[in-house]
């Protein structure tokens, strides 16, 4: 249609007008002209190129993630924040609602990110089912089973996954069974769920058993856009339990940050406590204030 539109007015209009009734031609002509005008205005190649260049130079933003001043932010003691969050989460199912923590960092936009796994003093997940892919009957298989893996094996696991039965939350693999795993082509099924073992994510390991043990009480976290988010406690936790978990988390993140690279400087900027349905409460680092209720009242359902 468009090629016709460009060709027609110059070459074929005379012919067209001669062989078609004049009424029809009238209705077509303005349509052509409008069409051409719009096209010209929009797709002027020079104008377009100029605009693009300008935006490109503009796009180069600040090197660091901009973190605003917390001067006006209302900050809370842990017990007070918990009191509000427990009020927001009232009547929710205990198994689904969790305390979350968001740790904002002062960091550059590029460079390495913090990525690690943590084991809390008080486990957040009640039970995480782990599948281990390794040669059945081997020493690793026995160790993994002893460490608490739910599903251990090679072919039987592949069969189950292909049949759509994925009854585990984590998946590990031993390097010996990696070829078999790749042959089974489970990436299509496991990949989107984030269960596909790979060396990059640290789920292909020699010492399967110790990894299983770590995973059972462990939570994986990573820094995204200068924020680390992770679940930190069940809703029934007492303030002391939550404090212990929070302390462990912050200590480990500080350790991660210092262990990254000498030139990379990351520091914790703000700690925000939130919950599954609740707003975020910026913490001021104190445990309780004079107004906060007894810690026993903030425990349980």
């Amino acid at each position: 249609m468009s090629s016709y539109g460009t060709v027609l007015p110059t070459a074929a209009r005379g012919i067209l007008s001669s062989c078609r009734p004049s009424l029809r031609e009238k209705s077509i002509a303005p349509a052509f002209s409008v069409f051409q005008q719009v096209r010209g205005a929009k797709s002027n190649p020079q104008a377009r190129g100029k605009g693009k260049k300008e935006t490109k130079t503009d796009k180069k933003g600040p090197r660091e993630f901009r973190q605003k001043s917390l001067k006006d932010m209302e900050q809370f003691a842990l017990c007070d924040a918990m009191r509000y969050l427990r009020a927001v989460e009232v009547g929710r199912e205990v198994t689904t609602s969790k305390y979350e923590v968001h740790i904002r960092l002062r960091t550059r936009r590029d460079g390495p990110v913090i990525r690690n796994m943590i084991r809390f003093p008080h486990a957040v997940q009640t039970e995480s089912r782990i599948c281990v892919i390794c040669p059945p009957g081997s020493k690793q298989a026995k160790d993994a089973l002893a460490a608490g893996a739910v599903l251990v094996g090679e072919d039987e696991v592949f069969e189950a996954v292909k049949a759509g039965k994925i009854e585990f939350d984590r998946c590990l693999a031993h390097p010996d069974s990696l070829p078999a795993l790749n042959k089974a082509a489970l990436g299509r099924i496991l990949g989107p769920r984030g269960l596909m073992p790979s060396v990059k994510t640290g789920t292909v390991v020699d010492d399967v058993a110790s990894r299983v043990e770590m995973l059972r009480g462990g939570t994986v976290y990573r820094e995204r856009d200068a924020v680390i988010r992770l679940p930190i406690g069940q809703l029934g936790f007492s303030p002391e339990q939550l404090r212990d978990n929070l302390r462990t988390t912050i200590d480990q993140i500080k350790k991660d940050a210092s262990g990254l690279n000498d030139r990379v400087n990351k520091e914790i900027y703000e700690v925000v406590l939130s919950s599954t349905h609740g707003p975020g409460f910026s913490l001021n680092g104190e445990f309780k204030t004079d107004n906060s209720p007894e810690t026993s009242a903030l425990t349980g359902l």
Partner: protein
Amino acid sequence: MVNLFKRMRKLKTILDIRTGTGAAIFPNPTSATKEFPPVTRLHLTYARKIYNGHQGARHFWRNCLPRLKYHNPGVRMTVQQTDDQTAPPALTIYFAERLSSTASAIVGTKKITDKHAPAAESGEKTAVVDLKDLNYKEIWSRVQASTGAEEVPASAEDEAERKRLEAITAKAGKDRERISTMRQAKKDQERMLAEARGEVEKMKEL
């Protein structure tokens, strides 16, 4: 992470947890009188949809329970949502040792049972309130009457804060209207110009 100012604005909603319908303190072991024994637990059961009078119960959960929980952090509160639309929504109030003097009058003669409510522990007495076709304010007035809960008046700062937020909301409405008229006027202008241009082209073609 969410913009700091957005978060600060959102955090103002905790004002609604501190104050409003249901911001009251239940009698606890120290403040209990002979008439109103301490309240140990609450349990609410309602169905998923609103017909057959289940709406008020859900609103009670949404509006009043967070306030009650905030002011009575030690009182356990559970909510069970069911698919059974025919059973009446019910609120079970657990009193320590004995029922309050007004509870039986509030419960009325038509006794209902809530099979989802957790069983009363030893020394607990329960009163099951039928919530069918009541709105959440009516439910709250019943709960207050039967437990003798003491309302927490909003502090002067909270009042001022509420006024400020209301003023902001009113201003936002006005601004929205102003901006939408401006945008509409601009759009109208553009459309008019485009039409005029089309007319000129038509003339040219002719």
